[in-house]
């Protein structure tokens, strides 16, 4: 038997020995250590390394729909003159399992849009001061980072009141003009 083959056989026996395999198993710790040390946690959980299969689900209106709630469709008014306003209450819910904060952006179209103002109140009747959006131009009305909270044990929900106003000093050139607006609500896990 050539010396080389003998050495190979001896190495194979050594490599398969209990000691060698036991020493090799230390490598598992090395792998775990490397991976754990370098691992970046990404997604929607926390440093406690909890995993979640949860979700968030923003719903609008009393019908709890994703889009086109009946409430804002009633934000319609013909024959507006300076000082006219129209209001509606819009319920917003999170029927998912994660808490979220949400933002709103407005896209408005039509010649009248430039003259309209939007106020959003944190109540159902548009009473008091508009704390969410204060008399902003409809074309640029927005808010962000509003946490949706609810009473303990209940679905997180709140009702906002929207008021669209044609200000008293609106220009006469807006006569006969029309507008529509779409509010886009985007929720992100808080």
């Amino acid at each position, binding site marked *: 038997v050539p010396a080389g083959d003998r050495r190979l056989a001896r190495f194979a026996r050594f490599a398969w020995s209990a000691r060698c395999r036991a020493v090799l*198993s230390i490598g598992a710790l090395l792998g775990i250590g490397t991976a754990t040390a*370098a691992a970046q946690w990404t997604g929607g*959980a926390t440093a406690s390394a909890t995993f*979640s299969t949860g979700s968030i*689900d923003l719903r*609008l209106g009393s019908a709890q729909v994703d889009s086109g709630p009946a409430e804002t469709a009633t934000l319609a008014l013909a024959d507006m*003159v300076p000082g006219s306003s129209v209001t509606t209450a819009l319920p917003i819910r999170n029927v998912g399992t994660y808490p979220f904060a949400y933002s709103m952006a407005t896209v408005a179209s039509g010649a009248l849009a430039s003259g309209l103002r939007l106020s959003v109140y944190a109540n159902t009747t548009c009473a008091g001061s508009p704390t969410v959006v204060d008399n902003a131009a409809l074309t640029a009305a927005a808010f962000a980072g509003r946490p949706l909270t609810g009473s303990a044990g209940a679905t997180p929900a709140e009702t906002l009141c929207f008021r*669209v106003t044609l200000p008293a000093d609106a220009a006469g050139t807006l006569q006969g003009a029309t507008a529509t607006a779409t509010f886009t609500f985007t929720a992100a896990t808080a």
Partner: protein
Amino acid sequence: VRRVLRETTLTAGAIAGLLGIALAVASFVFGLRPVVVTSGSMGPAIATGSLAWARTVGADELRVGDVVTVDGTGGHAVTHRVASIAGTGDERVLTLRGNANASADAQLYVVTKADRVVASLPLAGHALAWLGRPAGILVSIGGVLALLASAFGSGRRRARPTAVLPRRAPVTGAVVMVAVVAATIAAGVSTVASSRAAWTDQGTASTGQLAAHTVQLPTAAPACTNEGGVVGLLGYARLTWQHRDTRYAYSYTVTRVGNGQVVASGTRSTAGAVNSAVTLDVTTSLLTGVLSGGVDFDVRIRSILSASPSWISAATWTTRVHSENIVLVGLSVRCGPA
């Protein structure tokens, strides 16, 4: 049975060890970085609990459709798919979207480099998370120590005389390695950053039609009647029309035909109901500076919003009147042209 169990365990340990070494070497040589995915926003491609491997690449190498891990706000990492890329040079502005999300992330990410995910393994993230916890560390270190002990321990089982390695050295080496690895794991666990929220959802709500009022003229032209003009009373022209809308008032201007000179202007308001009569008396005192008869004037009536006078009807009712010297009465105003 014990022997089989021991052999199996040793073999499994050795395989795990080789994998671990391969993983550590690969991470080092190819710059791969493990990413534990803790939410389902990239599902179903990358499910919750997956372990992904990412390689850092320059921003210019990124393409739409790549799955990247980038730092979000507050040092939290987000793993999402690139929806669009803007910018040139070293910096790129990324719009990211989770596979399972209806909308793109509100936040834009400005990056000069990003970790591009090259592979992912379901459930491995769960395993790594468990192994990285104190209980997992204890079990894995304990397991390896038990294997070492059973291989080098009592010596009841045959120590191979041909063993190349000296008897003490591997044990000492192993203890040192275990200590180093344990310290590494501990350091790794303590530096794991909390991750940013990655779920988004979107809803839209539209208004109905919002329409502004258009100011309208009275439906019919003003009627003109001659009033006064008998002895002792000056004659004047009275214009009468129907009130169109309770929100309205009426502006008038009187201009001299020929030179267009405005000789009178003003507003007539009324508290009357819709369709009640509104009148404007065009007298000589209204037409200041008019001294002679035989001059034509146009009286123009327009509707306005009484609360917002800049809202004025586009159209006009025009009524022609004229001045006239009446015997025994004097200078008067009469309907129609001279």
